[in-house]
C-alpha cells in the first residue's frame, strides 16, 4: 500500500552490502520505504532485516551502494546538512561523553547545532532528568541514558524523530515512558519512526507500519488496515459441553477446532449467529470472544523463515484461533 500525501522519509531501490571475512552480505536489498508525515510509524523486521542499516543510511552514517533516499523531499546524503536540523535520531544505544554531566553534554550539543542554551534545562525537565542533570553520564542507568538521548533529540525541536530499538534494556516503567514520549511527540505534530522488536508496544502507539525482512519491504500500510486485512472473524467459544457444541457448529458448515473446553470457530457470519445456533439446541455459552489478528501475528506471518527469531513458514506456531493466515505480501 502506498501512502498518499507528504512523506517524511522515502527510499527507492535502496541497497547496502557489507563485506565480512571476504564474503559480501546483503543488509538492505532494493528497499522502497515510505513514512508519511505525522503520526508514529513502526519499522519492523527480524534481527538482521536491515532496519538499523536503513536508519544509519538515512542519517548519513552509512553510505548506500545504490538507490535513493529523501528526507522531507530533500535527497540525502547530499542535502543531509540542510535537513538534519529537522531530524532527531536515537540509533541503538546512543553514546555521549562519559565524564560529562547530562547538562554539559546537552550544552555542547546545543552549541554545536546552534540551539538556544536555555532549551537544555527545558528538555531535561521534559524527560525527567532535571534532578540528575549534574551527574556524570557514565553513572546513568540504561533508562536514564535513553531519556538523555531523547532530550538531546528534542534540542532541535525536530519534525522527524527516529528511534532505533528505543526500549532495548529498559524496564517496564522505562518502556512505558518511551511509549508515552512517542505519543506525546506525535500528538504535537512530530513524525516518529520507531524500529522495535516489542510488537505489542509498537502496536499501541503506531499509526502506520513498514515490515522488512532480509532487507526487503514485505508490507506497508496503516496498522489497523494491515491487521484487518489478515483477520477473518474467528470466534473463541467457552462452553461446558464442547464436544456436543462442536458437532452442532460443524453441522452449520463452519470450521471448528477444539482447545480444551474452548472451541475456535472460523467461518461463522458473526458471534450472534453462533449463540443463536447453540441456544436453539439448549446449549449456552460461558464465553464468546471475537479473535482478531494482532501486529505480532501479522509480523510473524510476513517474516516467517526470513531471519533469526522468526519461524519457518507454515509451522503453525503463530496460528491464531481463527483463520488469519497471511494472505498478502508487500503492499
Amino acid at each position, binding site marked *: 500500500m502506498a501512502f498518499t500525501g507528504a512523506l517524511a522519509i522515502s527510499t527507492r531501490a535502496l541497497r547496502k552490502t557489507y563485506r565480512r571475512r571476504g564474503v559480501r552480505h546483503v543488509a538492505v536489498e532494493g528497499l522502497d520505504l515510505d513514512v508519511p508525515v505525522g503520526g508514529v510509524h513502526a519499522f519492523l523486521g527480524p534481527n538482521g532485516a536491515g532496519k538499523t542499516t536503513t536508519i544509519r543510511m538515512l542519517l548519513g552514517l552509512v553510505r548506500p551502494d545504490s538507490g535513493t533516499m529523501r528526507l522531507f523531499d530533500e535527497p540525502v546524503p547530499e542535502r*543531509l546538512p540542510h535537513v538534519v536540523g529537522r531530524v532527531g535520531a536515537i540509533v541503538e544505544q546512543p553514546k555521549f561523553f562519559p565524564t*560529562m554531566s547530562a547538562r554539559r553534554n546537552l550544552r555542547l*550539543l546545543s*552549541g554545536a*547545532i546552534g540551539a538556544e542554551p536555555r532549551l537544555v534545562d527545558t528538555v531535561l525537565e521534559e524527560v525527567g532528568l532535571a534532578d540528575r542533570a549534574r551527574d556524570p553520564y557514565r553513572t546513568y542507568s540504561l533508562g536514564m541514558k535513553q531519556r538523555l538521548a531523547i532530550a538531546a533529540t528534542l534540542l532541535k525541536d525536530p519534525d522527524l524523530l527516529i528511534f532505533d530499538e528505543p526500549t532495548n534494556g529498559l524496564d517496564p516503567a522505562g518502556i512505558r515512558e518511551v511509549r508515552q514520549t512517542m505519543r506525546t511527540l506525535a500528538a504535537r505534530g512530530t513524525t516518529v519512526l520507531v524500529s522495535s522488536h516489542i510488537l505489542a508496544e509498537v502496536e499501541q502507539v503506531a499509526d502506520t507500519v513498514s515490515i522488512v525482512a532480509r532487507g526487503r519491504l514485505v508490507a506497508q500500510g496503516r496498522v489497523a488496515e494491515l491487521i484487518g486485512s489478515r483477520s477473518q472473524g474467528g470466534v473463541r467459544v467457552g462452553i461446558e459441553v464442547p464436544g456436543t457444541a462442536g458437532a452442532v457448529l460443524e453441522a452449520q458448515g463452519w470450521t471448528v477446532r477444539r482447545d480444551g473446553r474452548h472451541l475456535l470457530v472460523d467461518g461463522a457470519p458473526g458471534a450472534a449467529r453462533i449463540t443463536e445456533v447453540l441456544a436453539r439446541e439448549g446449549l449456552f455459552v460461558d464465553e464468546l470472544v471475537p479473535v482478531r489478528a494482532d501486529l505480532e501475528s501479522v509480523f510473524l506471518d510476513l517474516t516467517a523463515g526470513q531471519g533469526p527469531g522468526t519461524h519457518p513458514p507454515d509451522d503453525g506456531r503463530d496460528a491464531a484461533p481463527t483463520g488469519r493466515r497471511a494472505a498478502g505480501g508487500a503492499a
Partner: protein
Amino acid sequence: MSPLLRAELLRVRSRAVVWGTAVVLVVAALGFVVAAWDDTRPPSAGALAQAREELATATARWESDHAGWVEVCEQTAERDGEDLHVLCDPLRTPPTLEQVLPYRPALVETLEHRYPPMAVVVLVGLLVMGVTLVTADFGSGAMGTWLTFAPRRGRVLVSRLVAALAAAVPVALVALGTALVGIVAVVAVNGATGDAGGAAGVVAVATARALAAGLWAVAVGVGLAFALRVGAGVAGLVVWWVAAIESALPLLVPAARGVTLATSLRAWLEGGTTYGVEECVGGADVPPVCAVVEHVVSPVQGAAALLVAALVVLGLGAVSFRVRDVP
C-alpha cells in the same frame, strides 16, 4: 568561530586524556630536572676529601716531574711549529682542586644539555594525545551520535583538529615550563648558575622548536586516528613505520636516510643535522674507491618534510573519514 568549533573547544578542556597527558609530561619534565640537579650538585664531603687526596698526589707528581714535562713540551712545540705558551704554560702551574673535582656545568650549558630533549617527550606525549582524542570517540560510539547532530564530516574533522591543537599548546607549555623552571631552580640552588648570558636565547629557540614539533605530532595523531579509528591500529602502524621505514630502509637504501622522519625531526629540533652515505667511484679497470659523504639537512628542509608528512596523513584521515561508514 563556528558553533561546532566552539563546542569542541569547550569539550576538549574537560577531556581526561588532555589532563592525563599534561600530568605525564610534567612528571617526565621532573625527570629532566632531577638530571640537571645531578649534573650541577656540589661535591659531597666524601667526594671533596677524595679530591683533596688526588690533588695532593697530583701536586707531588707535578713538583717532581713538571720541569721534565715542560722541556719535552717545548721541544715538541718547536718541532711542530705550535704556540709554545698555549701548549706548555698549563704545565708550569700546579694542579688545582677544580681540576680533580667532577665537572659541574653552568646554567647555559645545563639548559643546552637538558632542556631541548624535552621536545621528544612532548612530541610523543602529544602524538598519543592526538590519537586518543579521536579514537576514544570512535571506540565509544560517541562519534556516530555526534554526526547525527553535525553531519558535515569535513567540518567535524577540522573542528577536532583545531581543538586538539589548541589543547596541545597549554599542555606542551606546562611541561616545558616545568622543565625550564625546575632546571633553572636546581642550578641556582646548587650554586652553579655561572654566566647566564645567552640562556634566554637557548630557551626561546628550544621552546619554539619543541612546541612546533608537539603541534606537528598532534596533527599527525589526529590524522592517523581518523584514518585508522582504533588506537591499536595506530600503534601498530607507528611500530611498523619505525621498524621498516626509519630503521630498515636506510640500511637497504642509504640515501633514504635523508627523507626519514627521524632525520627531519632531528634537523628541526637541533637546528640542522647531517647523515653519511657511502659513495664509491671507480671503473671496470680501476678498483672502486669508497668514502662516506656527509649530507647536510637544514632545519627548513626538515620542517618542510615534516609539514608534507602531516598534510599527507591528515589528507588520508579526511578521505577515510568521509568515505567509510561510521559505527
